[in-house]
């Protein structure tokens, strides 16, 4: 099949208008697996594709393959709630996610592919005078790092989110909120497709339905990956398989500080514009919920983990109910809507809630994993940093804190603040 790296522009739209449907070509297609590569990236999700893209663009590596046991973008990059933000408390996290958010701001131009970044704001809502100082502390930490954060009182919040001005009485009073204006949403599938198209244009081979089943080693190095299409020589190997990293650990013979848990999301039938921001809400008796409205009009809701390890991708009803209850408590006007779809993603949950980016066992095997709740929003920063790590052999400062050794030395990044557990009980 023919592949085209045709640039998108107003001019190309105009030409396509007269050239007919045949003008448009597949975004990427039809590469055959070679027998040897400089770098083999395992996992054609956001992180794997972004890593391959940056390896080819920034470091001039042209023999790069991305292998996936399924299809491009069929894992967690297509299962998240599309929210991007950088309002984390810990410096190691907020500098990293800020790097990602800055890259998201220009990603459509960089990839020449519209990822529909919408800086509609992310609003963390406080329900009591005790919640508000916690948000203020986080906001202050962000402002000291030069990241935008605003503390809103109730009047300012209701001006910013008119849907919150109650026509009907809400169950709980709101005390205030923390707003990150540059946070918002990005079309998740477009991120995967955009990176795949851009990487393919730079000569990266994207091979779908090619599962990696083992690693060949010699001494302290890996030499090749065994796949369902045969062995492939690899100078360096990157595993970007978040959601199934525990199984990769077993394949490599390394226990990892990761458990796999389910995180659910759901979307209602489409309605007229109601909500032009992202609301994050922890109601009394609820774990957590976040609500936004998609460009198609559906109300997208997500929540907390199901609470036990699972690979089934079948969400637990009781958590679904919890998320919906919390959302309706916050926005009573959602009460009459029907749910359209409901799904779950498998999350790599680390023992401190922060990611893992490090070498693992062999000097040329790299792990990009443990994304917990932050996988989608970190993609551009993760890809750039991981590519630099793989190309240079040294972890960039931005991700040095995400090493595996932090668990042994006690330098945990306990962002959620509940100790060495993958899930809050």
């Amino acid at each position: 099949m023919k592949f085209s790296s045709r640039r998108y522009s107003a001019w190309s739209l105009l030409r396509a208008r007269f050239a007919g449907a045949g003008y448009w070509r597949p975004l990427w297609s039809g590469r055959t697996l070679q027998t040897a590569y400089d770098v083999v990236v395992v996992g054609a999700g956001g992180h794997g594709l972004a890593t391959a893209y940056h390896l080819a663009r920034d470091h001039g590596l042209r023999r790069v393959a991305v292998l996936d046991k399924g299809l491009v973008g069929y894992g967690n990059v297509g299962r998240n709630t599309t929210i991007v933000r950088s309002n984390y408390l810990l410096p190691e996290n907020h500098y990293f996610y800020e790097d990602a958010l800055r890259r998201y701001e220009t990603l459509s131009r960089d990839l020449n592919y519209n990822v529909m970044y919408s800086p509609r704001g992310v609003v963390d809502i406080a329900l009591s005078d005790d919640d508000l100082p916690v948000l203020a502390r986080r906001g202050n930490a962000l402002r000291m790092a030069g990241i935008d954060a605003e503390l809103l009182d109730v009047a300012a919040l209701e001006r910013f989110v008119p849907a919150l001005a109650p026509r009907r009485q809400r169950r709980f009073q709101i005390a205030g909120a923390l707003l990150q204006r540059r946070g918002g949403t990005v079309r998740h599938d477009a991120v995967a497709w955009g990176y795949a198209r851009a990487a393919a244009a730079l000569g990266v081979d994207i091979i779908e339905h090619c599962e990696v089943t083992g690693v060949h080693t010699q001494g302290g190095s890996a030499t090749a990956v065994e796949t369902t299409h045969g062995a492939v020589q690899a100078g360096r190997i990157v595993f970007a398989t978040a959601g199934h990293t525990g199984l990769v650990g077993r394949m490599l013979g390394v226990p990892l500080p990761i458990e796999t848990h389910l995180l659910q999301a759901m979307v209602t039938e489409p309605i007229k514009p109601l909500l032009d921001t992202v609301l994050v809400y922890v109601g009394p008796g609820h774990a957590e919920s976040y609500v936004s409205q998609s460009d198609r009009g559906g109300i997208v809701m997500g929540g907390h983990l199901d609470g036990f390890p699972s690979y089934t991708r079948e969400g637990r009803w009781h958590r679904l109910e919890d998320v919906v209850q919390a959302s309706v408590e916050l926005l009573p006007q959602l009460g009459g809507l029907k749910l359209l779809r409901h799904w779950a993603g498998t999350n790599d949950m680390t023992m401190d809630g922060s990611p893992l980016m490090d070498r693992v066992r062999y000097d040329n095997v790299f792990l990009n994993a443990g994304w917990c709740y932050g996988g989608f929003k970190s993609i551009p920063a993760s890809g750039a940093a991981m590519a630099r790590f793989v190309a240079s052999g040294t972890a960039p400062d931005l991700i040095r804190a995400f090493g595996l050794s932090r668990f042994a030395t006690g330098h945990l990044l306990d962002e959620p603040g509940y100790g060495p557990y993958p899930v809050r009980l």
Partner: protein
Amino acid sequence: MTQLACPFCGPRPLEEFLFRKTMPNAGDSAYARTYLRVDHGTHSEEQWQHSGGCRVWLRVVRNPSTGAVASMTVEGSAYELR
């Protein structure tokens, strides 16, 4: 996986049960017991509690890829049930 069978109460809805932890399986050091996991994919030994029912602590062997429960016994108990 919508129900679990408590040895005392019989089959009860899942939301009555609380997952507590995955049993240490990656070594005996405090570090390994606290942080590391060997992920078998199809086999997981866990501690649960029937927190919304009889509050008994349970040792559960489960397949996290299907949700199927292989065994469910009273934690730390030598006596047999039923």
